[in-house]
Structures are given as C-alpha cells and as structure tokens.
C-alpha cells in the first residue's frame, strides 16, 4: 500500500500562494497578498501534522493549496511521491481520491437539500468508486463507523445536531478511502462538550484506518492534544516547527510564546502574570509585508537587525526549527533571556 513517498506521505517544499489584488485605478498597480510565502513541511504517514496561527496567518490557504484547491504560485507538493502541482484533469482527480477534507462549519458545508446518505455517497459517485450496490453498503458501514445509525442516512442535515453533522462530514471525507484528511478547524464551530466527541472519533479513525491528518486550528489546547508535529504560522510563513512535546515545553519563537501565554487557563490564576508576553496591535496585513522579520513590528524583543534582515528557519535542536535572530545556538529564547536579566 505504501506509495513512492517513503516515510512521508506529504512533502511540501517552498510553497507559495500569492493573490493579485485588482488595481484601484489604471495608474497604480494592484498589490499582492502573500497568503503563503515559501513554507516547507513534511507529514509522516499515520501522524497528525498541525498548523496553528491566527486569522490571516495563511494556515487555511496552506492546507487548501495542498489539495490544489487554490492556485499555487510556486514550490512543490508531493503526495505519496507524486508531484501534485503539475497534475491536471483526470490525473489530478485520481490523486484527490487520496486526499479529502473536513470543514469547519458543519452547517454550511452540507447541502441542505440532500439526504445524509447521499451526501456521504456523493464522493464515491463522482470518483466512480465500486458499483452502486457496494456504495450503499459502504455508506451504511461509514455511518456505523462515525457513530450514526444507518437508518439516519434518510434524514436531511437540519434534522441532525451540530456534532452529528460533523460526523456526517467526517463520513463523507472517509468515503473514497483517502490516505490524507485535511481537517480545517473541525471542532471550533462545535459546543465544548461536543468537541471531545469529535476529537476522540478522529483519533479512533486514525488508528483504525491508518489515516494521516493535516490539522488546521487556532486552538492550542486542541492542537497540543491531537497533533504529533506542529508548525506555527505567522503572515504566510512558518516561524517555528517541532514535535508537540518540544514545542510546548520550550517555545522558542517570541510569537509562539505570545500565543501560548495568551491562552486563558485556570492554572495561571494563581501563578500571576510572570513571563507573559502581551502583543500590541493586530497582525499586519499580508499585502506587501515588512522587509525583515514579519513579526518584528509586534515583537517586544525586536532589535535593529530584525527590521532589516529576514531570519531563516533553522534547526536549533533535534527536530526543532525556528526563524528568529534572537534565538542563539544555546536555545535560549529571547523571552527567557529577558526574564533572566531582570
């Protein structure tokens, strides 16, 4: 079953997605949105790779690009060893069978006029998987696997609760027996008590089918729980990347640290505010971003060099990558250095 990709199911190299903006008038050229600007990552088979970031960081665009659902400006995407960026027509269609998506909003991502069974069956119809009788059997089997009753296939989306609708979305994603599932904020539209149900289901299915997930989220608690490896994105770039334990135990980039310390938690109630980084302002616009480090305008530790020179993403510990001038080879992040100096 293993294809040409070796240990890695998905390999993304220097991926760029730029969007041209319309000209405001004939004299001024339109700007360019650098939604994803040269990111590289690899996803191990059977693992969950998380991309975290705030709105506008490009995390969703990065995931859609991996599915070729947005035009790719440059770089390479290899799924199972096959270069996706050059594919078109039937070949692309064939590859898409291996990669499916679960969307954020289970209300708008299901066609309200279709019955639940037909929604789950549709990808198989479109991709000619098996004969019609097999497809019906598979729908029943999928309903069972995601925790719905097979007879519920006859109901319409509005007759389900939010959590059940997301189960339908998961069943639809599984229909073509994909290897990679892109989960774009799959639980953030759900009630807290329901989130756990869906996260447990995703892990169960991963184990059962050997699935690989590309998991997009802004919720650090969820990401820490479900992902094996994590990339932190800021304004179209990866600023830090590591396995889950290393990233949270020793966040190196000031932005990662700011994200981690912004999460409200019960524990910090007693701990006070020590070591917290509060970012000022909002993320800047990805249209013509600043020349040096993109985080420099909001970074409390930025020095001259950060505004002039772009830091490269480099490995500072085994498997732990960071792009920050201020992180030395001794792995002391700027926020720790600042705390130590006081």
């Amino acid at each position, binding site marked *: 079953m293993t294809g040409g990709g070796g240990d890695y199911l998905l390999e993304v190299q220097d991926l760029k997605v730029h969007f041209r903006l319309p000209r405001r008038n004939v004299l001024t050229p339109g700007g360019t949105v650098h939604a994803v600007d040269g990111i590289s990552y690899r996803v191990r088979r059977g693992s969950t790779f998380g991309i975290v970031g705030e709105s506008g960081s490009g995390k969703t665009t990065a995931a859609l690009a991996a599915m070729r659902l947005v035009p790719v400006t440059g770089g390479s995407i290899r799924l199972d060893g096959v270069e996706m960026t050059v594919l078109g027509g039937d070949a692309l269609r064939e590859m898409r069978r291996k990669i499916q998506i679960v969307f954020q909003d289970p209300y708008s991502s299901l066609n309200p006029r279709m019955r639940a069974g037909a929604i789950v069956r549709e990808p198989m119809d479109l991709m000619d998987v098996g004969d019609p009788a097999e497809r019906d059997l598979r729908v029943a089997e999928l309903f069972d696997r995601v925790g719905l009753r097979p007879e519920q296939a006859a109901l319409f989306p509005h007759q389900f609760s939010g959590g059940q609708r997301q189960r339908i979305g998961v069943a639809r994603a599984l229909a073509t027996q994909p290897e990679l599932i892109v989960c774009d904020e799959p639980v953030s539209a759900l009630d807290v008590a329901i989130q756990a149900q869906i996260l447990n289901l995703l892990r169960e299915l991963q184990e059962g089918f050997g699935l690989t997930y590309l998991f997009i989220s802004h919720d650090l608690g969820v990401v820490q729980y479900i992902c094996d490896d994590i990339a932190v994105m800021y304004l179209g770039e990866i600023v830090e990347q590591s396995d889950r334990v290393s990233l949270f135990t020793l966040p190196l980039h000031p932005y990662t640290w700011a994200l981690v310390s912004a999460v409200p938690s019960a524990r910090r109630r007693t701990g006070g505010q020590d070591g917290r980084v509060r970012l000022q302002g*909002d993320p800047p616009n990805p249209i013509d971003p600043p020349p040096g480090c993109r985080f420099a305008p909001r970074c409390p530790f930025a020095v001259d060099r950060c505004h002039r020179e772009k830091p490269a993403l480099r490995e500072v510990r085994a498997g732990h990558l960071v792009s920050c001038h201020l992180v030395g080879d001794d792995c002391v992040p700027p926020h720790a250095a600042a705390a130590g100096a006081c």
Partner: protein
Amino acid sequence: MDAAAPLLEVEDLEVEFRTRHGTARVLDGVALSLQPGRTLGIVGESGCGKSMTALSIMRLVPVPPGRIGAGAVRLKGEDLLQASEKRMREVRGKDISMIFQEPMTSLNPVYSIGDQIAETVRLHEGLSRRDSLDRAIEMLKAVHIPAAERRVREFPHQMSGGMRQRVMIAMALACRPSVLIADEPTTALDVTVQAQVFDLLKEMQEKTGTAIILISHDMGAIAEMADRVMVMYAGRIVEEAATDEILENPRHPYTRGLIACVPHMEEEPPPERGALTEIPGVVPALTDLGSGCSFAPRCDHATDLCRSRAPRPFAVGADHRAACWLYDEAGAA
C-alpha cells in the same frame, strides 16, 4: 452573608417561549446577586440559558413569543421587571450595558464610530454634540485605540475585529454603567487579541468599579476573569461557587464534564495521550424536559430518583451549591 446590599439581584426568574412544538421553559428558577466591582461568570453549552439570562436582565426578551413568568430583577433595589418601558430605556446603556460576541454586526455600518459612542452619551447625559464627541475621543483613548482623534471619524469596516470590540467596550462604558454584561465578548477574536480585550476589561473595571457579568462557554476564560461562577444547564443553575472553589472542587457531574472534556494546554505535555472525557449526547430540547433532572440522560450517575424528580440546589461547601441528588444530605429518599 455579604455586608453590602447587592448591586444587582435576580430572584427566581422564569422565562418561557411559546413554540410550534410546545412551551419551552428557557429559564427556570435563575437567581444571582452581583456586588460592585466584581465579576460573575456564567458558563454552559449553547441553549443553556446564558444569553437569555442576560436578555432578561436587560428586559430584551421578545414578548411574545417570550414571557417572563415569575421572578424579579432588582437593580439597586428597583425591580426592573415592573419598570415602565420609558424607564428601561434610561436603564439600558446607562446603568446596565452590554457587549456582544460579534462586534461587526452589533455596530451600525453607516455611522462613524464616534457618532455611535456619542449618541449614547447625548441620550443619557444630555451632553451637546461637541461635548459628546469629546467624550467619545476620551473613551477611545481609554480603550487604547491609537490616534483616537482621527479614528473617531472612521467607520466599523475600517477597523479590525479587535479594534471593533474595543469600540464596543468604549461605547458600553461611555456612561459609566454600574453593570456591564459581556456575552461571549472574545469568541470571534484571535487568542492574542482576546488576551488584550480581557486585560482591557480588567483595567476598566479597576478604574470604574463596574460589575461584570461574563458569559462564556470557555472555562479558561471564566477562570481568568471571574470571581464567582455559575454553571447553567437547560435553563437552570446547576452549580455555583467562587471560581477557585469550582475549579478545584467541581461537584456537579455536568461541571466536571465541562472541565474534563476540553483539552487543556499543558506547559509540559505528557508524551502519551488518553481519550478525552466525553459528555455523551446533546443538550435536550427545552420543549420536552421531563419532571426529572434535565442532565440525567447524559449523566453517568443518574438514578431513578434523578429521572423522576428535579433536584434543588444543595449546599456542598462554603458558599458552594450544586443541584444534584448526589449531594442530598438525607441520602436518596
């Protein structure tokens, strides 16, 4: 127990909605009391009555189909449920104001933000146009909006989500209300911006002594902001205590579930991960609540008693109450 008379007191509030599927009791025996300068958190899933409690306090429940069946909402001793509509218009925005989840839809897109803040002040305090605009600028500065003199003339669409929520806070606090109701104020915002908004709310509370009711589904947010927590389920208060007490010692199975089902971010994550605790099932439809505890169908500890009779709140600790038969001192009767 408290020496001072509460600023806001809600007693035994009952609200019903008539629907096609029967009468839904959306609030049942809700009671709360709030002291000046304090923050009360209300937590629960959607459909538990959190927002309805806020709307009832403001008397913004649409009647019909809604109906406030019983209870009292006392602000400094005055029962707002008996007040005239004219009096309520004075109260809203002046004594009690509210900020909402989606700052874009709660701002008027065709007026500048300065006009919108100034309108509140003009109506409630009778300031002139000029003075009210000055107040608007002063409020924008107070909520740390840079270049307030310029931005006061801008429109909502020219601002980011975080900025808009700052404008909402400026507007809500412009008349120095004694109570601010914040209904999921940061749910639509990024975490770093959420942290800024929480810091701002705390700072403004320290300056003005406003009491805050914070409604949220996020136990973490509540933990960071609130002094006291009320957990609601299907229109009832199921547990209530000081924040530290409820976090360290949750008693109601629903509260325990709410705390356990969320993957918490650990500073040193364990390498192995077990399955998350689930609360099975969903919030029941409010039209067919039986006579028993409404959480019983989702509860691991449910007994026949739970299914037949709704528990009243039992004292389970110092100033800590849980509405669950597990804590009936007399034992399951």
